[in-house]
């Protein structure tokens, strides 16, 4: 069986894996509270995503530079303190840029430094092998979180408001249930499943193209096998 196209696709889209179907949000349920609860509009989703990036970057950079000098019992305390300092700076800047966003986010803004993605990345840093690799992985995973956050914010914002950037959609029909956490769970599950499905479809198409024409299975071959036609 030839796998040239499949191997080329897998080799060239390694970066896409960390953004989509291998994203730590959809594979390991990391940093979920912000996605499930706080992404009820595109504004709040964008703010959460930006805050997550601005809080995580100093922690990850410090881990890369001086991580080995921090004793293991003190590392959650040290990195948590750095994350909180970054969060207070984001809070101060946010009060100046978007003051109304904090009242709607409630306590979830203050949970950003306590998110599991940061602490798991820091704990498992040494297992990755080369020094630069965990930082690269962490940055790709952060990008994946931002992507899913914005996607969920967009979908839920359109469903709650019935409009897309002030343009009415579906005759202004809105679904206010999209505001609640249960919808966040369901939407996240559908996004995770859809990403995996797309990846599988691409692999199946490339696999079919790799095989010689006479060896390709016909479309819907399983149904035709059941009927005894093939």
């Amino acid at each position, binding site marked *: 069986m030839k796998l040239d196209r499949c191997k080329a696709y897998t080799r060239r889209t390694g970066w896409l894996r960390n953004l989509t179907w291998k994203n730590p949000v*959809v*594979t*390991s*349920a*990391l*940093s*979920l*509270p912000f996605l*499930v*609860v706080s992404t009820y509009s595109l504004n709040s989703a964008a703010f959460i995503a930006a805050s997550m990036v601005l809080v995580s970057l100093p922690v990850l950079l410090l881990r890369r530079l001086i991580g080995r000098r921090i004793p293991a*019992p*003190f590392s*959650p*305390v040290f990195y*948590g*303190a750095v994350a*909180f300092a970054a*969060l*207070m700076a984001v*809070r101060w800047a946010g009060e100046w840029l978007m003051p109304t966003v*904090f009242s709607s986010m*409630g*306590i*979830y803004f*203050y*949970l950003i*430094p*306590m*998110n*599991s*993605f940061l*602490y*798991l990345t820091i*704990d498992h840093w040494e297992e990755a092998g080369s020094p630069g690799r965990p930082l690269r992985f962490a940055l790709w995973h952060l990008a994946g979180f931002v992507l899913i956050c914005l996607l969920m914010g967009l979908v839920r914002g359109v469903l709650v408001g019935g409009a897309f950037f002030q343009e009415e959609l579906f005759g202004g029909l809105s679904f*206010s*249930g999209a*505001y*609640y*956490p*249960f*919808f*966040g*769970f*369901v939407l*996240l*599950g*559908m996004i*995770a*499943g*859809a990403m*995996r*499905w797309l990846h*599988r479809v691409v692999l199946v198409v490339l696999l079919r193209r790799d095989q010689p024409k006479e060896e390709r299975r016909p479309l819907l071959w399983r149904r035709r096998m059941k009927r005894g036609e093939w």
Partner: protein
Amino acid sequence: MWQTLLNFFFYSIAAIAAENVLFARALGLSYLGGQPRRIADTLLFGGVFTGMTVLSSGITWAVSNMLGSRPYLNYLRPTAFFAVICLIYLACYFVFGKLGRPRLLEIRRLLGTACSNCALFGTLMLMAVQRFSLAQSLGYGLGTGIGFTAALCLVDEAKHQLKRCAVPSSFRGMPVLFLYLGLVSLAIYGLTGHPLPQ
């Protein structure tokens, strides 16, 4: 006295069921990743988490009262609560290490996960924002820990059951688990009497 005990009891029941930290507030979900665990491991982690929640809820109630209505409360309160959690974590870490018993060392290994869990910090912030009394805070903290443990056991069992179901291949694992969590969250939301807005 009776009023205090009733407050403690009702707030703990509310935190276990109607305000379940995992299903109603989506906190502490990171512990769901991976293969289903043994019930003993889940109960041990739940016990450590419950202990941390009860201990820190009492201390943060006192800290919150000391802070009162100072200026820059939005900056002071989260920082103070984080400092309390760190102090409790370090105290337990070194005391358990000094005592050296195998069970305590096993608990010490779980302390980092229990303390850096957003469910703990989120619960403390909720109690401070809603200005609970001491009895209410302790009851809510205990209920949160018990509710979180019960939710973890429920989700672990759900993972076992979902593995046996004919789930489409793209949805096996975490996607179908998210759908399950969404349905349970909706059920709890409806059971507490909230109607969906029209």
